[in-house]
């Protein structure tokens, strides 16, 4: 009887401390560090296949890829020619408007070393931790948009919660007209739900939603999602708006951790 009672008390204590008092953050950080070898081993097959894909490649493939990148680079350079003058103009205009100057955010590249095996928890495990300056609540982006935020940091690895997780919500605004809203995760990787939009609000399919910067967690102006469906039901108080995240949440292997100027100052 004691053999059962002891462990039961331990587990109930842990669950209560974790779920209702949020006391186990530091313990988890230590345990996560211990768990990182398991992720490393589980990730080996992917690494090997990736290594062979990059190292065993035909000469013609390489030349072709090189050519493509050259072309892409030319186009991007062309686009960025006017960037300098536009940027200084932007600074001048913001000064005229008396608003604070926009500071460019620094980023850190992190590699994905695992995803949560539980399909109901949309979490990623990254290979950067406290030692690299990663902090709780740090925003995570990829080339196309916002991905999520850091929810657990240990010394060598960290865990990120994706924006589509059911426990996640992000303040957004419509890029076209500045309408503010909250985009909540639905648990499915390909959709977000924009909550509490009244029937008269100007929002339509194809609108780009960007982070609004309200709430102070995510910096302003990163693309989050594109509205794919607006359902106006006269019997409902709010319009049902669904949006598809712009970031490739299930395909990216490298992600960017954003250091905003404000948060860096706090450190």
């Amino acid at each position: 009887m004691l053999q059962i009672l002891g462990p039961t008390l331990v587990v109930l204590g842990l669950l209560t401390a974790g779920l209702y008092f949020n006391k186990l953050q530091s313990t988890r950080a230590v345990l996560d560090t211990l768990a990182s070898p398991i992720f490393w081993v589980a990730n080996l097959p992917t690494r090997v296949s990736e290594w062979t894909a990059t190292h065993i490649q035909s000469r013609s493939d390489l030349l072709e890829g090189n050519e493509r990148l050259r072309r892409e680079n030319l186009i991007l350079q062309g686009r960025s020619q006017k960037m300098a003058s536009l940027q200084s103009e932007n600074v001048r205009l913001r000064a005229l408007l008396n608003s604070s100057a926009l500071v460019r955010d620094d980023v850190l590249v992190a590699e994905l070393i695992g995803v949560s095996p539980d399909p109901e928890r949309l979490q990623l495990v990254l290979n950067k931790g406290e030692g690299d300056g990663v902090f709780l609540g740090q925003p995570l982006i990829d080339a196309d948009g916002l991905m999520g935020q850091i929810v657990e940091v240990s010394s060598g690895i960290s865990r990120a919660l994706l924006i589509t997780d059911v426990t996640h919500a992000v303040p957004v605004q419509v890029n076209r007209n500045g309408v503010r809203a909250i985009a909540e995760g639905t648990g499915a990787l390909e959709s977000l739900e924009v909550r509490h939009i009244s029937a008269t609000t100007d929002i339509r399919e194809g609108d780009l939603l960007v982070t609004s910067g309200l709430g102070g967690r995510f910096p302003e102006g990163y693309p989050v999602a594109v509205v794919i469906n607006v359902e106006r039901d006269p019997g409902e108080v709010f319009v049902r708006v669904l949006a598809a995240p712009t970031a490739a949440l299930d395909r990216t292997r490298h992600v960017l951790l954003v250091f905003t100027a404000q948060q860096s100052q706090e450190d």
Partner: protein
Amino acid sequence: MADRGGHGYAAIFLTFVAAYVLAVVPLPLWLQWGRPEWLALTLIYWCIALPERVGVATGLLVGLGLDVLEGAALGQNAFALMVVALLALILYQRLRVSGLWQQAAVVFVLVCINQLICQWIQNLEGVSVVPLLFLLPALSSALLWPVVLHSLRGVRRYYRVS
């Protein structure tokens, strides 16, 4: 002889490590809901094979490890696996003499219970999405039971764990 005892613990430990790796190996999206509960299977096997050494406390320790890997609330899988271990300990004498697919049927029920407890604790936390799909691992675990049984029995005989 004392050496052999230590050896036994190492072998048991390694099978659990292998189960952990299988539990987090990346799977394609369409397979994700059907991922077998490798830890529950391994735990059930050792409870049947060595009921005097593996039991509720093992379930607790092993489950805590899985909680850390899954990013679940600490204690979620620990609690579920403790219950699984307890039931396996109650049933082990019957399981030893029953046929392979009868065992698989019991495994199905045990993993169902495991999944239900996990789901219940996740609901307390506010995480829950798809109804009944979470029972799919029970089916895949039961179908894989013969494979797990034979490979773990192989390990046990090879290292003479008793």
